[in-house]
């Protein structure tokens, strides 16, 4: 939090995934995903629908069992752990569809986020709300009454309340009005600059992923098929070459 540039590339990656296989029942979705995310790094994964983006994050979070391969967080193997244990180990998750607790107020949703992280609740929420000023007006409203974009901000804020070591971010732009997409980009850039937040993002919105990611990995048919620098990702024609359906 010293406001300087992003930290230097680390030697041991914070998150390391080797040959990860997963799927639903007998239907395989991931066929050997390998990737590494360094401390303070923002890595994007680009892929079309059905290529396994959400499956990858669900498997990393422990909702789906990995049928083969390894996942480690700072060198500690976590592949067999429950979602609860992974969350406690420092994995933050902002799921597709946001999954706000609809009957809890915005403030209560944030309090749920504060279960982890160890900091006193009130101060932590105050600090996070400084990053998400739009939420301040809605603290007493039920989470389910917020618009999609506001819910996305809330889901992100709730996740950050727990001070995760890495945030798994699943298609935050899905079904969200463009003004809030810009707001989310700015907020994430700010947090990344100020705190060196580590993020693994899956997305298909090119502008969003290119604005935030330091590296962009291409996920195709359940495997990482390449890596592109963010500048290339802004060029839809070139990206289609990489991500295309063949």
């Amino acid at each position, binding site marked *: 939090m010293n406001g300087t540039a992003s930290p230097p590339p680390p030697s041991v990656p914070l998150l390391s995934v080797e040959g990860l296989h997963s799927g639903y029942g007998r239907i395989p979705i991931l066929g050997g995903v390998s990737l590494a995310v360094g401390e303070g790094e923002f890595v994007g994964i680009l892929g079309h629908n059905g290529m396994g983006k959400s499956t990858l994050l669900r498997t990393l979070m422990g909702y789906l069992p990995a049928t083969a391969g390894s996942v480690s967080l700072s060198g500690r193997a976590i592949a067999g752990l*429950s*979602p*609860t244990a992974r*969350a406690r180990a420092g994995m933050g998750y902002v799921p597709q569809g946001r*999954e706000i*607790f609809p009957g809890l107020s915005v403030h*209560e949703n944030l309090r*749920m986020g504060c279960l982890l992280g160890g900091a006193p609740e009130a101060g932590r929420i105050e600090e996070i709300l400084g990053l998400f000023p739009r939420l301040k007006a809605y603290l007493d409203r039920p989470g389910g009454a917020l618009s999609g974009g506001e819910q996305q901000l809330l889901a992100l804020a709730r996740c950050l309340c727990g001070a995760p070591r890495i945030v798994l971010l699943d298609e935050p732009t899905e079904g969200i009005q463009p003004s809030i997409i810009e707001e989310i980009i700015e907020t994430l850039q700010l947090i990344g600059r100020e705190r060196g937040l580590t993020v693994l993002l899956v997305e298909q919105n090119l502008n969003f992923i290119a604005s935030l990611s330091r590296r962009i990995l291409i996920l195709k048919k359940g495997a990482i098929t390449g890596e592109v620098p963010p500048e290339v990702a802004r060029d839809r024609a070139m990206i289609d070459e990489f991500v295309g359906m063949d």
Partner: protein
Amino acid sequence: MDLTGLVAFNVVTGIATLFLITIGLGVIYGMMRIINLAHGEFMMLGAYTAVTAVDHGVNIWVALLVLPPLVVGLIGLAVERTVIRFLYGRMMDTMLATWGISLGLIGLVTTLFGNVVKAVPTPVGSFEIGRYGASLFNLVLIGTALVAIVALLGLLRFTKFGLVLRATMQNARMAAALGVSPGTIYMATFALGSALAGLAGGVLAPISGVSPDMGAAYIARAFITVLGGGPAIVTGTGLASGLFGFIDELVSFQTSPVIGDVALLCAAVLLIRVLPQGITGRFLRRSL
């Protein structure tokens, strides 16, 4: 005038009784979608806890109000750990399992205590409403129900456990991603519901008579009240108890308790027809 006062007192007692016999079932069904067919037998175990404690010379108030929820809460904890936790999300299986547990408990208690009706002395006497005598113990019932309502609302609204409980019931997977262990929360909720069933059994023991099959007398009314109350467990159970208890007692007073039960059932059928989600499915949705 005196008669009105007596009837009003009895109506309030009936409402409190209905709330007490329902709330344990409501906590378990409303929070976890588990239909606990052993609810009546958990009440029965609470009543037997009271009988046994009184027989051993334990202070009557401790025997009625403290030991039953503790003992039955622990039994519920054991049942959850050994049976229920393997069956989450499988409603039919949990119904079968809890039905089996209820039969087993009836058999066990019959073997241990015999198939006879036992009695617990009423710790307080009566007072007068004008020319009529009314049981002071009914005031204990009403007080217990009020304390239960306030304590549950306070627990859900103001404690961290209550917050985590509500979040887990709304979305257990997301709660897990925030570090909550849903299994632990389910365990605690089942134990809490069991303890409330035990409390109902204990506090009703002096007026109901204690026998191995006493649970059957309560279970139908408890289920009807839970369904009538809808998704907000405490408020819904309170409102449905108020409505059904009022109708039951008033009709019972005018005719007979059997007709009173019939009236309760008819009221419940009508209510579910008009409000399929129960009272709090339509009104007071944000209540707890």
